[in-house]
């Protein structure tokens, strides 16, 4: 659906040349909800703007659907843009127009009659759950409502692609959740392909099926959500995932309150990650039954990613050290990842070994 081929964007001013996007290749399939995550300044907003050519790439090729956008003239490009919806962090609604007026904005030259336009607008507002706000002005709406208007407006020309530029970053968690739910519904109901730019892994975790991690203009890791979440390769990806699962906060808390740990001589602190089926068996209990190793759970979290449960635990194993090793080997044989944490500096997690 969307194909970015070796796309680079450089900005030049008098003193320096800044490479905002550096040789990025990315393919988004039809029906994907593709998350692009990175810290601010990583170049993700610039990258998403190359998809509808609001930002012309300095090098590379951008195709959406069958069209190579970078080859189009201004007029064809404008036509193509009508089929690529976009929503923004600060909503960017027109203050001088009503909700209905905002949604109808891009329908003016669509060949629809006045009556058809007004029907279409009502249909769209119904879809985003704002039918009763038709005649309100944006200044009378809450943030979440404004973003719903933004979504309705972006969908006015029945696009196949929706670009979301930090679309939930200005919203509170509850509103964020409801907007994400709406996007998910649109994806399923309309077969809409969605690209989401965000700095919150939480958002990606919630609805994306694929994810790319950006740093300093490059995509450093990309792939299927579950596999990136459970087997991250880059350090930065770890960081984002730990933020999303709140593991970083848990570790910080443990670090700042050594009393919580109270490690005995043979005890060891470990992080456990398990995916899918292995969540069903009562593994922790069996460790004591089989090896006499007690497992003290200090922190636990289960996520459902694309219908796959992914669990994260921080535990203290106590018992005879040889038995502990056996217990860990047993866990690993059950497709559970175990990584030892240094209690003194928990944040620097020992690289997890990959289990086959």
């Amino acid at each position, binding site marked *: 659906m969307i194909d970015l081929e070796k796309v680079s964007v450089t900005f030049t001013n008098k003193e320096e040349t800044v490479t905002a996007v550096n040789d990025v290749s990315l393919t988004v399939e039809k029906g994907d909800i593709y998350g692009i995550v990175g810290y601010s300044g990583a170049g993700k907003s610039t990258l998403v703007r190359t998809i*509808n050519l*609001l930002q012309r790439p300095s090098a590379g090729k951008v195709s959406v659907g069958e069209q190579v956008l970078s080859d189009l003239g*201004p007029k064809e490009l*404008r*036509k*193509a*843009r*009508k089929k*690529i*919806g*976009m929503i*923004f962090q*600060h909503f*960017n*609604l*027109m*203050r*001088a*127009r009503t909700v209905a007026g905002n949604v109808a*904005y*891009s329908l*003016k030259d669509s060949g629809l009659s006045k009556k058809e336009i007004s029907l279409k607008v009502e249909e769209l507002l119904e879809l985003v759950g704002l039918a009763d706000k038709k005649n309100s*002005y*944006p*200044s009378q709406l809450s943030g979440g409502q404004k973003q719903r208007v933004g979504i309705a*407006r*972006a969908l*006015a*020309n029945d696009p196949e692609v929706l*670009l979301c530029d930090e679309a939930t970053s200005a919203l509170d968690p509850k509103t964020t959740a409801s907007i994400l739910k709406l996007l998910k519904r649109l994806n399923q109901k309309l077969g809409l392909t969605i690209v989401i730019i965000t700095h919150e892994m939480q958002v990606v975790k919630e609805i994306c099926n694929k994810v790319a991690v950006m740093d300093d203009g490059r995509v450093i890791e990309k792939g299927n959500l579950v596999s990136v979440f459970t087997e991250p390769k880059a350090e930065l990806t770890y960081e984002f995932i730990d933020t999303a699962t709140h593991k970083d906060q848990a570790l910080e808390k443990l670090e700042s309150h050594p009393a919580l740990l109270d490690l005995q001589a043979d005890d060891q602190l470990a992080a456990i990650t398990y995916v899918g089926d292995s969540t069903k068996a009562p593994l922790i209990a069996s460790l004591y039954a089989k090896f006499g190793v007690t497992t003290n759970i200090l922190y636990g979290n289960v996520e459902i990613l694309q219908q796959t449960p992914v669990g994260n635990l921080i535990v203290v194993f106590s018992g005879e050290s040889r038995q502990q090793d056996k217990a860990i080997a047993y866990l690993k044989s059950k497709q559970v990842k175990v990584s030892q944490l240094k209690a003194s500096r928990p944040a620097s997690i020992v690289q997890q070994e990959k289990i086959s």
Partner: protein
Amino acid sequence: MIRWFESYFENSLAIRLEILDSIWETLYMVGTTALIAGVLGIALGIVLVVTEDGGILENQKVYSQLERAVNAFRSVPFIIMLALIAPFTRLLVGTSIGTTAAIVPLVVGTVPFYSRQVQNALLEVDRGVIEAAESMGSSPFEIIIRVYLKEGLPSLIRVSSVTIINLIGLTAMAGAIGAGGLGNLAIARGYNRYQTDVTLVATVAILIIVFISQVIGNYLVKKTSH
């Protein structure tokens, strides 16, 4: 009361009709200039906004030339401008004296100021909204008409009322080249002939015109803001 008025304002009473004429002349000059300078100023203001760095029709050359011209014309004191462009005025309307002739320097004096005001007003339109319109496939022309002018309307009205008040001040100065109007009345009659009451009446008339334009301006701003 009436007798008191008659004794203090005897000069003004004697030229009642002339005062009415002057008011009409001032309104005529302000109205006509506002119309012509309004169109030109908005056009130039739009050109400044869209050709600016990062504008929708970014064009460094056009922008810097136009900006320089606007700055230069704005720097010339109006009273000198009147004399300076007298030959041009004569070329355009056949004479450089009189109410209609005054409209030429008034327009030249107002357009640079107004185009700058328009530029500032349109820059208040959120860049993000322009970007949203671009993402929806709007052409630059469409963005100017349907986004800049529509979204910037309250600000445009605000700066227009400021400009009109400014313009009323300029018409008084144009009296110096025999343009007529209230300014001329206040100086030629009131000041030069020691008829202070005429100056007073002319001033009050100007104040009332200013006040009314301000009230109308504020009303329209309020009405168009959402």
